[in-house]
């Protein structure tokens, strides 16, 4: 694995474009910036094209004989299926407003990380084969031939976009480079070009129900470890149920939160809360993944994985579904699920049995976000909270890209945070809410082999954290996304070492006063509760 450069070395970013034009500048597969190829085995599990052993470093990518035909035919098909693609290919005026909005551009200075050029990589090929001007004027109209070198460029840059949609907020036509990346990746998949950090979790999720490929009994064990910890910390024993028919609610968190800190702490907080209010809910081992790396593969794959949620809700006969803290999961639920796998005539309009609130905004998908659910509980005074238990945390909040820009979940988590902790500070306006900066590892790019690129892509986020760290002493970066919880800790470690990362519900769990609990001495991380000064005494 490539060695990670020091921070000051990495900060020497050159924003001057190279002398050679972008069409003449070949892609450089520098170690630390790209991801390993998808394993043949995973491709086979999923029935994806061209499973084989290969590496992006190789000269020969072992493409099928007629790869070019496949790609161009795939492009033609998608132009007919997605108005978004047609428009985004035709209407960009190259005004450059999106250029410095991409975290990968800001962190790398590589002009092909400007959203507009990322899109031009595909657009140039589109012009050549699908437009009159491109056919006649060729290069002068910005058209170019699809060659193996162009394909390599696509692979490099479409797996260097986290599909965060920040660019689309600023574009005067709403051109969403994430959409172009998604379709670009779909095309790459047609000839067997994908990354292992996406394909293997997808294969696991498909067969075993979750990204890590944990089998049913393993999953139950892992949840038991969480409830054991909760019992140790609070003295309250939770009784979880799995695959239980007739429960009122099916609760689906992202599986990352079951296995890895600090996600586990956040999931513990959610389980404690659901226990405390006595919600009649079940977990599922079959639909044990809220996340959906299919989104990072193709629309079809997204649908194949997502189908489990409704299938399981139907089989178990629940009334509605509650979803955990996860970012891209909520893009899928908010913008794709019902269209792909609905209608949901077997479910009922979600109603909180505790507050009686009817979640009218979910009357078609019948799926509620845990922060919507919790915010409603707090607003109705249904839970007892002691925010002072979080006093040693000086908290800020990172909006994950998808809940922010593909849903608009901005105030719910903030409302919760302001009720469960006493020290909350926002990062600068240009870096939060709809303008939030990506963690640098979304859309399947959270691997280790591209660590340098992750640190670069995460620079704008880290820089904003650093600002509030220095100004207000912020030491806890909260978020509602499982990928964030995996990717932000190393990012903080690299750029702002004194800041930790947590899920919003970890702080809820700390603050939650439970019936029959013992005096809380430890936080969900088994750290002493109270301010740091207290602990020093």
């Amino acid at each position, binding site marked *: 694995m490539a060695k990670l450069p020091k921070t000051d070395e990495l*900060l020497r970013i050159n*924003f*001057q*474009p190279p002398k050679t*034009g972008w069409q003449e500048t070949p892609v450089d597969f520098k170690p630390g910036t790209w991801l390993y190829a998808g394993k043949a085995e995973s491709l086979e599990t999923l*029935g994806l094209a061209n499973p084989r052993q290969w590496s992006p470093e190789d000269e020969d990518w072992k493409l099928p004989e007629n790869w070019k035909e496949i790609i161009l035919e795939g492009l033609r098909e998608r132009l007919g*299926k*997605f*108005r978004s*693609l*047609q*428009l985004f290919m*035709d*209407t960009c*005026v*190259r005004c*450059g*407003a999106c*250029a*410095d909005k991409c975290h990968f551009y800001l962190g790398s200075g590589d002009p092909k990380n400007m959203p507009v*050029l990322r899109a031009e990589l595909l657009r140039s090929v589109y012009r050549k084969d699908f*437009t009159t*001007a491109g056919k006649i004027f060729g290069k*002068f*109209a910005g058209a170019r031939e699809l060659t193996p070198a162009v394909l390599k460029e696509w692979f490099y840059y479409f797996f260097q976009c986290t599909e965060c949609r920040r660019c689309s*907020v*600023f574009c*005067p*036509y*709403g*051109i*969403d480079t994430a959409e172009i990346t998604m379709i670009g990746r779909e095309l790459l998949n047609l000839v067997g070009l994908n990354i292992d950090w996406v394909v293997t979790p997808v294969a696991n999720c498909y*067969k*075993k129900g979750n990204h890590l490929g944990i089998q*049913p009994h393993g999953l*139950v064990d892992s949840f038991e470890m969480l409830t054991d910890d909760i019992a140790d910390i609070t003295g309250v024993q939770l009784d979880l149920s799995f695959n239980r*028919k007739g429960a009122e609610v099916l609760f689906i968190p992202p599986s990352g939160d079951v296995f890895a800190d600090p996600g586990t702490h956040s999931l513990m907080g959610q389980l404690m809360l659901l226990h405390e209010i006595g919600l009649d809910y079940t977990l599922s*081992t079959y639909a044990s993944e809220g996340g959906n790396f299919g989104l990072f593969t193709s629309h*079809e794959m997204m*649908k194949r994985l997502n189908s489990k949620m409704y*299938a399981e809700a139907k089989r178990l006969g629940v009334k509605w579904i509650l979803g955990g803290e996860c970012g891209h999961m909520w893009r899928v639920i*908010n913008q794709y699920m*019902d269209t792909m796998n*609905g209608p949901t005539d077997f479910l009922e309009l979600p109603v909180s049995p505790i507050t009686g609130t009817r*979640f009218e*905004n*979910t009357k078609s*998908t019948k*799926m509620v976000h845990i922060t919507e659910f919790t*915010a*409603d509980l707090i607003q109705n005074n249904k839970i007892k909270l002691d925010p002072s238990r979080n006093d040693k945390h000086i908290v800020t909040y990172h909006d994950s890209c998808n809940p922010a820009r*593909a849903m*608009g*979940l*901005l105030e719910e988590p903030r409302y919760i945070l302001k009720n469960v902790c006493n020290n909350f500070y926002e990062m*600068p306006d240009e*870096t939060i809410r*709809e303008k939030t900066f990506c963690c640098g590892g979304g859309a399947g790019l959270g691997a280790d082999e591209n660590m340098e690129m992750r640190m670069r892509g995460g620079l704008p986020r880290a*820089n*904003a954290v650093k600002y509030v760290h220095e100004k207000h002493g912020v030491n806890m970066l909260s978020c509602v996304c499982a990928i964030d919880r995996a990717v932000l800790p190393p990012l903080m470690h690299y750029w702002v070492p004194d800041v930790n990362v947590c899920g919003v519900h970890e702080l809820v769990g700390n603050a939650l006063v439970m019936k029959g609990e013992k005096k809380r001495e430890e936080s969900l991380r088994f750290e002493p509760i109270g301010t740091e000064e207290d602990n020093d005494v």
Partner: protein
Amino acid sequence: MGLNFSLLIVAALILAVFLGVEALGLSFLFGVIIPYLAIATFIIGFILKVVKWAKAPVPFRITTTSGQQKSLPWIKDNKIDNPATTSWTMVRMALEVLFFRSLFKNTKAELVDGKKLTYQWEKWLWLAGLVFHWSFLIVVVRHFRLFLEPVPAFVTLIGKIDGFFMVDLQNVYITGVLLLAAVTFLFIRRVLIPQVRYISLAADYFPLFVIMGIATTGILMKYFYRVDVVSIKELTVGLFSFNPVIPEGVSVLFYIHLFLVCTLISYIPFSKLMHMGGIFLSPTRNMPNNSRAERHINPWNYPVKVHTYAEYEDEFRDKMRAAGLPLDRESSEAEAAATKE
């Protein structure tokens, strides 16, 4: 490269008219045939393009949400930037089309002291863009005084307001000047900002040069080489009433102006200038973010291969049983059939 190429083409176009009209006497070609061809190309090309877009379905509701969603009643939602209804979506769209609302959000990022990222105020592109487009629109509307007889009252009114300022005892249309200034600014920024220069294609310089050419020849005709407006109006009204005539005394400057306009409008359907139609159809802007409340239909939604619960249970039945998980079947279908025999 793209810049020089575009400049060369525009210069060649101008030279072609000059020679064509002055040396070869092709005023009917440049005054009648080409304008008709250009208008036909524009209208047909524009319609075909929009139809092509409209025919492609919108499979998913991929609204870009730039504000708080509508969820719990006591949380204030941002109705414009994250509309939940069609009417608010129309407000969002109107603000985009009329005032370039998204572009107004623009900032300029800079790495200060080699370590601090800052996001600075940058509205010049927005301002120049807005001035350019509004001026362009008003200039076009004003031109209808030359195409129609009698001149509609609102055209006269717009002309009056636009020509409010007097310079040297002459009314100066402010929009003409602003148009030229704004388009020049857009050109200069394209050349001076290294990133924007890097992404620019010949196709980006070309319309700017054509528009500069149109505005310059227009201004020259109006204020410097006073052309014979009466005969020009005869020509344009003739075109619009399908009785084309080529009156005497029409300056070659006018033919250049007209030809550049023809170039521009026939170029529109084949180029990025179609953004004027595209913006209305943009799926990230023209749909409400209500896909959890209302089901959005994908016309080509097709069944996909899934891994069913039954298959999953078959694979893990023993482990599930051992872990105390409830089962739908005690044994797989195949096993059950085997034991029966």
